[in-house]
């Protein structure tokens, strides 16, 4: 297991570097520069380029960049907020995005699992149909539709929750965006859980567990859910990443000062460093989540864990 872990972490780092290279190259080949102002003379642009190190050869800049990235220095923003270090920009925004995304993942997975289990246990009843309808709605309607629906009904009409995110009341004002974000997760997890649980419930080992006399939560959770979880975890990783990108729109609607809205602004204003820093963070999160999922597999499924060289046969 240890050897496997080290190998997986190594692969993750290499992947991250490859992503950095791709990001860097893409921006290199893009037309335009951060200094597109017509009032600037060529000399002034040259001075600015020299100041920010943009006149150096590509390879040197890339090398510098990696070095800075690994030490947590993402450089300074060119246009959004002049000369502010990006790490300062992120400091206030990243936690907000991660919190709302995390809330949505947790809430969505929990509700999705519960719905899926109920649907499987009450297979072919009204509860099953209801869950299926929720799943279809959740998958087919984009999150901003839910966001608008929620804003209008719970925010505007009933005035239960504020319409916009407020930094001074982070919990209350993050309810609507969290719910809007988690709908897709709820739907996907519920659908998968239902299918997997149905398959597991019909398996021989469930029959054996029942014939041992096991019933109730121990039967459902220890025997059924644990086996059903393995494929569910596979869909969870892309879902979490989906929440990060889905949050771009949601952050705009609820005017949340997160990294999603920062990315949109950065792209619009060609702010190289901010784009690279955010893409890097997104990629790092993605790779990190996949790593965690891979490790989780091993924890849940002994067949995978032991195949990795810990078995005694």
């Amino acid at each position, binding site marked *: 297991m240890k050897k496997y872990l080290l190998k997986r972490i190594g692969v993750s780092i290499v992947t991250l570097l490859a992503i950095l290279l791709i990001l860097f190259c893409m921006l290199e080949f893009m037309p335009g520069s951060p200094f597109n102002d017509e009032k600037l003379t060529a000399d002034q642009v040259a001075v600015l380029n020299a100041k920010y190190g943009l006149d150096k050869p590509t390879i040197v800049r890339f090398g510098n960049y990696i070095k800075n990235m690994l030490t947590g220095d993402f450089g300074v923003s060119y246009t959004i907020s002049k000369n502010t270090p990006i790490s300062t920009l992120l400091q206030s925004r990243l936690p907000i995005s991660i919190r709302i995304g995390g809330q949505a993942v947790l809430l969505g997975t929990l509700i999705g699992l519960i719905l899926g289990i109920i649907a499987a246990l009450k*297979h072919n009843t009204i509860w099953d149909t209801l869950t299926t309808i929720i799943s279809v709605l959740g998958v087919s309607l984009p999150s901003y539709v839910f966001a608008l629906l929620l804003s209008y009904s719970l925010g505007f009409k009933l005035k239960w929750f504020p319409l916009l995110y407020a930094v001074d009341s982070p919990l209350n004002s993050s309810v609507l965006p969290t719910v809007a974000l988690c709908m897709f997760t709820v739907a996907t997890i519920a659908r998968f859980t239902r299918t997997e649980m149905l398959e597991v419930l019909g*398996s*021989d*080992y469930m*029959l*054996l*567990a*029942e*014939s*041992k*006399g*096991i*019933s109730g939560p*121990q039967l459902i959770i*220890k*025997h059924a859910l*644990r*086996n059903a979880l393995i494929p569910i975890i596979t869909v969870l990783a892309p879902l979490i990443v989906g929440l990060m990108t889905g949050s771009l729109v949601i952050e705009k609607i609820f005017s949340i000062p997160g990294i999603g809205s920062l990315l949109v602004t950065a792209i619009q204003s060609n702010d190289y460093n901010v784009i690279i820093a955010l893409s890097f963070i997104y990629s790092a999160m993605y790779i990190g989540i996949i790593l965690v999922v891979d490790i989780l597999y091993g924890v*849940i*499924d*002994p*067949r995978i864990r*032991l195949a990795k060289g810990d*078995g*005694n*046969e």
Partner: protein
Amino acid sequence: MEKNTILSIQDLSISFTTGAGEVSAIRGVNFDLHRGETIAIVGESGSGKSVTMKAIMGILSSNGKVNSGKILFSSAKEDMEEDIDLLKLDKKEMRRKINGKRIAMIFQDPMTSLNPVMTIGAQIMEGMKWHYKTPKKEAYKRAVELLQLVGITDAEKRMKNYPHQLSGGMRQRVVIAIALACNPELLICDEPTTALDVTIQAKILELIKDIQKKLDISVIYITHDLGVVAKVADYVAVMYAGKIVEKGLVNEIFYEPKHPYTWGLLSAMPDLDTNDDKLYTIPGTPPNLVNKVAGDAFAPRNIFALNIDNRLEPPMFQVSETHFASTWLLHENAPKTEMPVELKARVERMLGEAKKDGE
């Protein structure tokens, strides 16, 4: 119910709701099992053997419905009244009082009947902890003993193994250990050797027989393998299309079969002296139980069928004190019909061999 009887199934009738309509899978099954004895239930696929067992265990699939009948069970253990009708217990009571604790079951395919994400130790100990709140240490000790009892070497090491690390034969031994964990009084073996290769089959049969003797439990075997029956059973019940057509002591069924279906089954069993080019098969296929069966269900495949077979279902005729068969051929007005000559020759050969073995 007699004193010595542990299980008595009376008039059991079960149907399933399917897309094709109502299927009457079990159409009036009766049999008794005495304490410490073994009954084998024989029949081809779809004859209702497994369904009857699932009804005993209370694990019928959700579209199954018990229409009538009783499954009386009498326990020698304390904390239970005399005879109880298992069909009257709800699922919760069934799991708490009966499953695993008093009646345990061994399934057909050991490759799929163990939970892949639990160690075998945990799976053996689970029942004890669940039913008796056995402390962990004690349960562990007992689980190791059980593994040794079912013939698994380095039991301690195996406790930590997962099912995928064991071979098919070993897994079936583990399933048996799980079944024995709470000292059941009745063990149901649903084709326990079908999925195993031949060399392992005999060992598992020996093991079950051995354990039965040691722990004094009653056993129900479900099988379509007459070789297994001859090896393990005291009693045999032959099932066809959801009914028991003939039942009796193992010698009565093998040497003096009365029902044409039993004749067919015995004739279709190859043995070392079978030197014909063709193996005998019973013509036709079992009836579709979606449709109501008029008369004897076996009549369309029966070359000995009488006219009445198509109209009226035969009752159980008593042949001897223990031997019953449901065929009109046994009625006093029926023409005298003997079993087929080839079968007769084989029976005599078997009898001769049995005598030789006895000497």
